[in-house]
């Protein structure tokens, strides 16, 4: 076991997979000579060379498309897009091509690309660097969407994503790259499907994904001090969604809060509540509560930014509301 930062876990997964399989390459802006904005590809350029660690021009749609084309002829490209906001430029090749080619070709071709990108707010990056967009990708047929909450999943899910035959979007988070956790020294894999209970509880379920899992864990601690036992479920994968785990936790606790950093309309929480309605409505003892971002472009001003984005306190109060205590 070694304490490893999130970015180091990603770097290690890249390194091991590139050493194993010559068809694995990585591409993106500043990932090579510069080592990557988040250091997630540091050292790889020197080790594997410019043919396999490809610094791209600032042309998100077409370098993603080139990666997709390469994947259709047997390569395994890992594409980094520096911010999920910039991934909007690549939606044509991602959604109109990568997500649809297997289907449109009647299963003849596949697009096994991995697209890594941080989605979320950091510190006063303002509206054009703070998008989350998880809800948009999770609504697209033909994609897998995963949200590693820490180094263990960041490493293990990237390894799995590189080996899977589907296009996988890995949504990371600017505030998680330095998060540290012990991870095994030996190689391991973490599956691309399945939610995970990361804190057991009996009174209420706090459901999160990506960074909001940490808000749920913090809220659970505070609730514990109040004598309330909260269960925290990390969705891990937004597509396909693990409906079974959602049903199980709701049937166990009968109260639920969904914490999402995305805006609420047509969001992740809306989908989770629909799943609850369809699969276990009668297990509920109270209305589900959504804790979410304000429906505004993310402001620059620090105070306004904080007001726009949910924090652990909001999750805590959401839980009290669900339990009828406020």
């Amino acid at each position, binding site marked *: 076991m070694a304490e490893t930062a999130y970015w180091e876990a990603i770097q290690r997964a890249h390194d091991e997979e590139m050493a194993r399989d010559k068809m694995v390459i990585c591409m993106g802006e500043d990932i090579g000579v510069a080592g990557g904005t988040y250091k997630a590809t540091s050292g790889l350029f020197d080790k594997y060379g410019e043919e396999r660690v490809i610094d791209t021009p600032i042309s998100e749609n077409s370098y993603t498309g080139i990666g997709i084309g390469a*994947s259709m002829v047997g390569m395994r490209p890992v594409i980094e897009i520096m911010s999920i906001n910039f991934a909007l430029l690549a939606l044509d090749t991602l959604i109109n091509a990568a997500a649809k080619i297997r289907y449109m070709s009647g299963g003849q071709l596949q697009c096994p690309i991995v697209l890594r990108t941080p989605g979320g707010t950091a510190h006063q990056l303002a509206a054009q660097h703070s998008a989350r967009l998880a809800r948009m990708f999770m609504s697209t047929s033909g994609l897998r969407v995963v949200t590693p909450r820490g180094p263990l999943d960041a490493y293990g899910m990237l390894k799995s994503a590189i080996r899977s035959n589907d296009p996988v979007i890995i949504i990371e988070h600017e505030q998680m790259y330095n998060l540290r956790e012990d991870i095994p020294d030996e190689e391991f894999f973490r599956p*691309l499907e399945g939610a995970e209970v990361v804190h057991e509880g009996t009174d209420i379920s706090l459901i999160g994904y990506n960074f909001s899992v940490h808000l749920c864990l913090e809220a659970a601690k505070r609730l514990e001090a109040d004598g309330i036992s909260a269960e925290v479920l990390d969705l891990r994968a937004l597509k396909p969604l693990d409906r079974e785990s959602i049903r199980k936790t709701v049937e166990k606790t009968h109260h639920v809060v969904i914490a999402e950093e995305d805006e609420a309309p047509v969001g992740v929480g809306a989908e989770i509540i629909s799943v609850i309605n369809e699969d276990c409505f009668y297990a509920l003892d109270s209305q589900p509560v959504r804790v979410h971002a304000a429906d505004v472009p993310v402001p620059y001003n620090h105070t306004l930014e904080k007001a726009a984005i949910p924090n652990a306190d909001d999750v805590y109060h959401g839980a009290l509301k669900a339990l009828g205590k406020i």
Partner: protein
Amino acid sequence: MKDADKKRILREMIFYRRFEDRTFEAYMERKIGGFLHLYTGQEAVATGVLEKAVVGQGDKNDYVVTGYRDHVHAIKTGAEPREVMAELYGKETGSSKGRGGSMHIFDASQNFMGGYALVGQPFPLAAGFAMGAKHKGTDQIAICFLGDGANNQGTFHETMNMAKIWNLPVLFVCENNQYAIGTRIERSTAVLDQYKRVCAYDMEASQHDGMDIDIVMEAAEKAIDFVRSGKGPYFLELMTYRYRGHSMSDAKGYRTKEEEAEWEKRDPIKIYSERLIKAGILDKAEIKTWEKEIDDEIENDIIKFSEESPEPKVEDLNKYVLDDNPDPRWIGPLQK
């Protein structure tokens, strides 16, 4: 080139024209749905360029990709005509099992990498195929056919730049038919000669008559040799004309009958058949015989196969969305 090959190429072009004409009829009979974009008039381009590429040899083929006007490119690359027609009929025996339709013909067994409806999307895909071929060290190249209208997409500029800086083995064939859907090139595009536009990316390029297949083949041979020898990408502009509308729903109100008549004087099949007759390689009677044979093949094999083939099963609706046999080690479920 041997006389037999010249005759074969002419016969192929006649076949493609009659194939497209027959899809027109099937569309009018509502046997074919969706959008249907016909290649009539442009036959010399795909036929001539791909004649000089590696096609019809399965996985040894060059990678070929194009837009939605894709039937002829697919067949010349090696797809079975009956499977292409069955795809237009939406049948399970179609080249994409009825999931793609006219605009999305694929034949992975022949490296025909698809027809795409997003104008300009094949540019980066083609560069990706080329990157894969280069990485694997094969001597395959990628060939991307698109119209002049596609050159006003961002993907054109982005991909030309990357194809050049990474020295990718990709041939871009611009089928300049002068119309972006229904907007004439002068009204949509600042630079009319498309080959000049890639000067901005320091790319080799040339412009030729796309109605004369001898000229097309000569130009294509040089361009393909250039790309295959590792010298980098090449942009080949071929001047051509589509006789029918952009798609079946197009009444061609944006151009004159006189203009159409001018281009039809330079019909690729007419030019080439007259040349071969003049050279004494064939006579009109032989062409008549071919036409009968082709019509018979289209009606009694291709259409019959398409009509009689089964529909896809509704219970298979959710197949091919993701890998249908995923490895549980990577996919899960999560061991709890």
